[in-house]
Structure formats: structure tokens, C-alpha cells
């Protein structure tokens, strides 16, 4: 586990990062998934610590979305263990959980931000209803309080309070993505999965969204796994980086270390492929 080792080294040097020595929030061991013999992802192992953001980069078809979907429980991996440190039960294998437990986890301690906000939002339900859904799913039954926290969360993702009763279809792409983030974070999850959160947004909107996400992650102490092909996104958001190619993790380490001093030939190609303006 080169990744874990590199972190331990950093942890020894920088005392304020000593929380990295804490128990991992998510511990992935040898996860593999293939589609009819074709490799989706193979033998992926890493630890994710509380408050840490990890980026997964790689070209299309490199298996990064497969990996993310396995971790989030949308796909069942063929092999491997995914251990999550839940508030209730401690470190547990999510594969061994019953479906109700896993679904409960998915709407309380986890969040999943889809690339296309249409996949993650209910387009026929108002913004307030979208944000309130997770609250109601965990038993909130007071309209006034649900609405107040919906408005609070819209404010936190920079959507004006008077848009609370508008449907997401009346929102711009960037607003829809921010709404999706609000909807996911309202129950105070500890782990956020993001699949290309800035895909399909223009650059100025991307920059605002990244700013927002970075602020929320720091403020709430979230852990996150961000899948993207955009190196700028991981540079801004991620503490740590995994580079994938053909289903394998070919390089892992601190973001700046990997991007500034890439070791693997493919990583070098990836970094040098970024257009300079």
C-alpha cells in the first residue's frame, strides 16, 4: 500500500495533519469488478480518512466510474472488501450489510453527486422538496422545520430563498448542480461520492462550484471521493490522488506530488496533455 505509506510519512512531518493517523473512514481492499470478462476495475485498495478528499483521475473507460459505483453500493464488486466506519456500527463491510441497512447508510451517512443533475434530482418536485426529501426519508415530519432547513441549505449553495418553490427544470445547469449538492448534504453525511461534479458546466460556473464544494468540505469536515478527468478539479479539491488506467491504479499519492512529479509514463502523458492557456 504505497498510498498509505506516503501519507504516514507526511503525517510524521506535519503535526497538524496528525488526524491522518486516525481510524480510516473507508477502507477498500482488493476491489475488482469485471463485465463479462472485461476488466472494469482490478485490485483497488486504499484507505480514506475523515476529512480527506481523494481524487480519482483517468481517461474514459479507465474504470473510475465503475470503482465509484462499487464503493457507493450501486454495483456489486466481484471481489474485495469495502469497510465503512458507520456512526452506529463501527467499521463494517458494506457488502455484508443487509439491503435496508445499506440503503439507510446511503441516505444518511453517504451522499452521491451525479454528473448529470437530472439523475440526482426529482425534476417534477420543487427545489425545497428536493432538499427536504432526505430529511423526510429519515423521519422529519414538521413542515416548518423541513422548509427552514431547505431554505438554509439553498442559501449555503448560493441559491436565492425565493427560488425554493421553483422546479429544478427552471434552473440553470450550474444551479441544478448546486441544488443536487444541497439535497445530498442536508442530512449531514460523512462521505460524499462525486462523479464528474463539474462535467458539462462552463468554466466560470465550474470555478464557482469548486469554490463552493471546497468551502463545504472544509466547513463540514466531509470526506469525499471525486471522480473526474479534469486535473484542475483535483488540483483544487483533492488532498490525495489516484490515477487509473485500464482498470488498474497505476499511481497514487498526494495531489501536488503526483501532478508536479508524475512517475508513471501514463501520468506524465496525462499531465502534459493539459492545454495551457
Amino acid at each position: 500500500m504505497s498510498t498509505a505509506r506516503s501519507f504516514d510519512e507526511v503525517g510524521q512531518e506535519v503535526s497538524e495533519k496528525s488526524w491522518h493517523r486516525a481510524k480510516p473512514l473507508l477502507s477498500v481492499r482488493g476491489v475488482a469488478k469485471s463485465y463479462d470478462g472485461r476488466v472494469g476495475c482490478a485490485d483497488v485498495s486504499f484507505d480514506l480518512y475523515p476529512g480527506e478528499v481523494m481524487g480519482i483521475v483517468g481517461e474514459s473507460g479507465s474504470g473510475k466510474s465503475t470503482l465509484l459505483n462499487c464503493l457507493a453500493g450501486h454495483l456489486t464488486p466481484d471481489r474485495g472488501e469495502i469497510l465503512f466506519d458507520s456512526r452506529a456500527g463501527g467499521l463494517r463491510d458494506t457488502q455484508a450489510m443487509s439491503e435496508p441497512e445499506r440503503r439507510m447508510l446511503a441516505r444518511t451517512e453517504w451522499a452521491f453527486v451525479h454528473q448529470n443533475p437530472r439523475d440526482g434530482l426529482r425534476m417534477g418536485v420543487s427545489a425545497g422538496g428536493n432538499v427536504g426529501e432526505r430529511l423526510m426519508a429519515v423521519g422529519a415530519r414538521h413542515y416548518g422545520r423541513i422548509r427552514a432547513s431547505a431554505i438554509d441549505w439553498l442559501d449555503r449553495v448560493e441559491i436565492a430563498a425565493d427560488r425554493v418553490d421553483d422546479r429544478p427544470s427552471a434552473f440553470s445547469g450550474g444551479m441544478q448542480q448546486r441544488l443536487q449538492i444541497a439535497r445530498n448534504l442536508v442530512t449531514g453525511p460523512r462521505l460524499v461520492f462525486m462523479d464528474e461534479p463539474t462535467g458539462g458546466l462552463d468554466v466560470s460556473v465550474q470555478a464557482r462550484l469548486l469554490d463552493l464544494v471546497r468551502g463545504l468540505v472544509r466547513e463540514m469536515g466531509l470526506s469525499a471521493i471525486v471522480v473526474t478527468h479534469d486535473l484542475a478539479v483535483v488540483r483544487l479539491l483533492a488532498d490525495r490522488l489516484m490515477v487509473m488506467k485500464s482498470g488498474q491504479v497505476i499511481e497514487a499519492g498526494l495531489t501536488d506530488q503526483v501532478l508536479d512529479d508524475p512517475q508513471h509514463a501514463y501520468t506524465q502523458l496525462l499531465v502534459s496533455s493539459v492545454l495551457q492557456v
Partner: protein
Amino acid sequence: MTQSDQYNFAYLDEQTKRMIRRALLKALAVPGYQVPFASREMPMPYGWGTGGVQVSAAVLTPEDRLKVIDQGADDTTNAVSIRKFFEKTARVETTGHTVEATVIQTRHRIPEEPLGEGQILVYQVPIPEPLRFLEPRETETRKMHALEEYGLMHVKLYEDIARHGEIATAYAYPVKVEGRYVMDPSPIPKFDNPKMEMAAIQLFGAGREQRIYAVPPYSRVESLDFEDHPFCASKADHPCALCGALDSYLDEVIMDDDGGRMFVCSDTDYCAARQAAGHLGAMAASDGQEERR
């Protein structure tokens, strides 16, 4: 042999009735759970009560007395044709009086007269799945019922309040049966929801959707709501124009194109019984005076 002799009792063959009865027993054993059944083609179009008719056919015995109502009325097309259907195929006695009936097939109302033990109320259901318009996938809604994930139902009520300032759902108001399954009570007005905790057996048949569900006698039936927006069994705030009843569900009848309207009991049997007992509403009284003159 007359034509009607050639039907098996109550139209359906015995094997079909047996299959429906098994579904009914399961439905009664798991209150509010939607039991799939092999719905048959009936000699009437979907949407006219094919599910209710099949359930009625399965529970009818030659000794039963049948009442059929459509939106509370005994004399509207749907009620008349279904009543005739069973008169012809089962030759059971029929009645308009709620208290005399042993089986009541209903479309969209519960009679005002409280039902007692020994009576069966059969509902016609167009869409049995309360979550349908929120979650289109059947696989997903089944899972949500199985895992008791009913947050989405409150999203619908939230949307109502956000848009209208109150829970504007006035009919097919979702209920939770025995603290477990969320159920669509068929499109009865929410005024009728509290009546569902009753002494009679309630059976629900959805022909097109091929589902049967049931509420056993004296089951707990709660209407979903919010703590700060409690459920309210609302009705038009008027007395009945014919019988003066203040406690019955009213239909609004437009009288002319000049804004004239009257409110009358939707339950025709209840209204007629009250009038016969001497209760007269505003419009009934003026009619009587004219006759006397």
C-alpha cells in the same frame, strides 16, 4: 333455459373465484399490502370497476343483498349497470339501503351510515400504488414498501403545502394501515378517511393493475400528515340543500349559468332517509310549500 341461466353464479368461473379468494385472504392477512392477482377480462371497460366487480363476484353468496354506489349515488350509470350485471348473473337481491346490504360495491365514497360487522365494502381502485406518480418504477416502489421507505409520500404532501399553503390533496389521500403499509384508499374524498376505521371488511380491487388489497375490521388507519399541518377531513362548508344535514359529504351542483348552485348529500340513500324522517333543507322546504299551495 334462459340466457342468464347459462352464467355460472356471479359470472366468474369457480376456479377464478377461488384464485381471487386466495388473494383476498392474503390481503386480509397483510393489511394494506397489494397482492397481485390474475385479473380477468370483464364485460365492461377498464376504469368502470372491473377490479371491484371481480372482488364482489368472489365474495357474493346467493343469500347476499347487494348495494352498488357510484360517488355515493345509487342511480348513476356505473352503479346501475353493475347492479344489473349481478341481478342478471347472480340473481342476488339488491337494495339501495346501506343498512340492509351485506355487500356494498362502491366507487369513490364510503356511505355516511356507519357500517357494521357482517358487511363487506368493496372499492373500485384505478391506481393501487400510492407512490406511483412519485416513483414510476414498479420494482422500486415494491422495494420501498418492503423496506418501509415512505419519505417520498411526504414529499408529495410537502409540495402541496409549498404550492397551496395547505395539504391540497382532497381525494385518494394516502393512509398508513396498522402502522405498516402506506395505502391508496382509492379516490374517496379525504372526508371519508376517518371512516376507514370501521367494523366492516374493506376490500379493494384494481382490475387493470391486477392488485387486491384489504383493510380488516377495526384496523388502525392513519392519514399521513405533518406535525404542523395535521390531517383535516374537509368538506364543503354548507348544509345539504335537500335534507339539511351538516355532517355529510356534499356535492356541488351548478344550477344555472348565473352562479346559482346547491350543495346536496353525495350519499343519496342517506339524504332520502333523512328527508323521509322529516329533515328538510333550504331548497326542499320551498319545494314543499309550493306543492301545498
